[in-house]
């Protein structure tokens, strides 16, 4: 079984994330980036599936030079090879353009048995790329899987909703997006880190994928960030002094905020 996992390099949520003043795109230079935590679940799930049978896991990313770091992490975790789609013209691409590039790259890799993605990126959090990608690849799609089994030519996934869980089956090849409930991603082992250095990483530009520069980038984007404003600083907490009536005061406070 061969699996392609789509991963994204995102600004570290622990650091001060911001936008570029010039074009309102996400600032990817000024902050440390990393493999989106939500994509670690996708990598882990792919590794588990392949380890339980056979085959290869290819990780795929679209992003600037720094995005190679996300691929490296996935290779250190155990993925077999990586493809990095990068081109200056891609800067500012939105979900439709990203899904186009991913689809073209997956076609070039050779359509796998399963494409696995995270449920959303931790920076944009739109969560629409998996659906767009499935559409472009003409694959059945199962999103938000919290459990996954593959048996012969069928994939079965559990989706947990607020009130019920559904079990969904699709035929392979298929695209699955997974939630952060599905597994516990592994940490790269020392061996994994050393082995990753020798694993193949291919870098493809627009020309390699037969995509025109006009189809991607900020110019082709369907959605744009018009403006952005910093989140207002957090207000100071209110300290309730307990003069024997602390409980009542707390209850009043909660009631005033409509918590109770």
């Amino acid at each position: 079984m061969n699996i392609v996992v789509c991963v994204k390099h995102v600004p570290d949520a622990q650091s001060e994330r911001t936008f570029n003043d010039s074009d309102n795109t996400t600032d990817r230079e000024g902050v440390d980036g990393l493999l989106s935590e939500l994509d670690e679940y996708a990598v882990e799930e792919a590794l588990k599936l392949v380890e339980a049978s056979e085959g290869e896991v290819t990780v795929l990313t679209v992003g600037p030079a720094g995005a190679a770091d996300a691929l490296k992490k996935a290779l250190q975790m155990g993925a077999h090879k990586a493809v990095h789609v990068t081109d200056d013209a891609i800067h500012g691409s939105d979900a439709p353009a990203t899904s186009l590039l991913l689809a073209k790259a997956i076609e070039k890799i050779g359509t796998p048995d399963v494409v696995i993605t995270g449920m959303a990126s931790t920076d944009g959090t739109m969560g629409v790329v998996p659906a767009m990608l499935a559409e472009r690849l003409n694959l059945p799609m199962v999103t938000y899987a919290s459990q996954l089994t593959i048996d012969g030519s069928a994939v079965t996934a559990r989706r947990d909703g607020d009130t019920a869980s559904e079990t969904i089956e699709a035929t392979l090849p298929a695209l699955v997006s997974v939630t952060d409930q599905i597994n516990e991603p592994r940490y790269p082992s020392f061996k994994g880190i050393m082995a990753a250095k020798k694993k193949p990483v291919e870098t493809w530009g627009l020309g390699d994928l037969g995509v025109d520069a006009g189809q991607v980038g900020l110019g082709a984007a369907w959605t744009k960030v018009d403006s952005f404003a910093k989140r207002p600083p957090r207000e100071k907490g209110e300290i309730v002094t307990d003069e024997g009536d602390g409980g009542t005061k707390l209850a009043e406070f909660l009631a005033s905020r409509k918590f109770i």
Partner: protein
Amino acid sequence: MDFDLTEDQQEIRKAVRELAGTFDDQYWMEKDLAHEFPTEFYEAFAKGGWLGVTMPEQYGGHGMGITEASILLEEVAASGAGMNGASSMHLSIFGMHPVVVHGSDELKARTLPRIVNGDLHVCFGVTEPGAGLDTTKITTFAKRDGDDYVVNGRKVWISKAMESEKILLLTRTTKAEDVEKKTQGMTLFLTDLDRDKVEIRPIKKMGRNAVTSNELYIDNLRIPAEDRVGEEGQGFKYILDGLNPERMLVAAEALGIGRAALRTAVKYGNDREVFGRPIGKNQGIQFPLADSLARLDAAELVLRKATWLYDIGRPCAKEANMAKYLCADAGFEAADRAVQTHGGMGYSEEYNVSRYFRESRLTRIAPLSQEMVLNYLGEHVLGLPRSY
């Protein structure tokens, strides 16, 4: 000149930071207070293959240098794991060096792969009630008896003995009065800590309480000759080989705690408001922390030089000693200042800096005291007369 770490070294730092970061200060506080070995932490590192960083590849390790090992232990300590975390694995990382270099193939095949995969816990038995810094004064005696040795004596401060299956044990096979030079007549064993023959009693101590340090009462312990490391009588020389790297690793651990303390102090300095402003705004708080940063960074450079010299096979005793001295002082000072920055809360367990303080204090005493470093530098580097 090039101050950059190699890509591998940077990767190691990053990966260890991430893995160690999954065990938070709360975990270490609880382990320390409960006097409980950090099994989950140790196993996570064993599973990741980290214990074999310096071990030769044929025994399942990665054959890397002391630079990489020091980065590993520094990051472990800096995560907040401190000496509790470092001591849980310290001996597995490089402590088996005498065995790797001088042990028989059979002994190595039997023990080293199990050390790398974490299955075999070991401790190191040198210090005795009557022999601390003056190692040649040890009296624990191994008497040859057919194919075995029979050992009697007492050891003290043996860390992790409670948790260990085996001990790397330094004994005398010839009494001090019967050898020409007092460094002769000592023999090293890597052998089972047979609980029937060795009574192990944990010592109540100031800190680093997740890992025990113990008194050992050895009573007719039988050791098969196959467990002897190298030749009889050469034990002291074998241990000497490992002393410089040992100093560097302790330096790295001291440096790591200093980093943890500084990070914690800076956070509190920004968060805690007194007289209507963050306390870090006061130069009386800010300057000592800035000063500690400078001292930790300077000490780190000496450590980096020491490990670099060792790894390329050049003499490094001066730098190894200096690194241990400077890192231990800088780390302890940073921890002390972190306590001061926290005011009363610094004295509680909750803010962790008192734990850092207790643990960093240790690096100024063991395995080698600051005074003995100065003795070394005074005599062997400056060329002054030996003072003792």
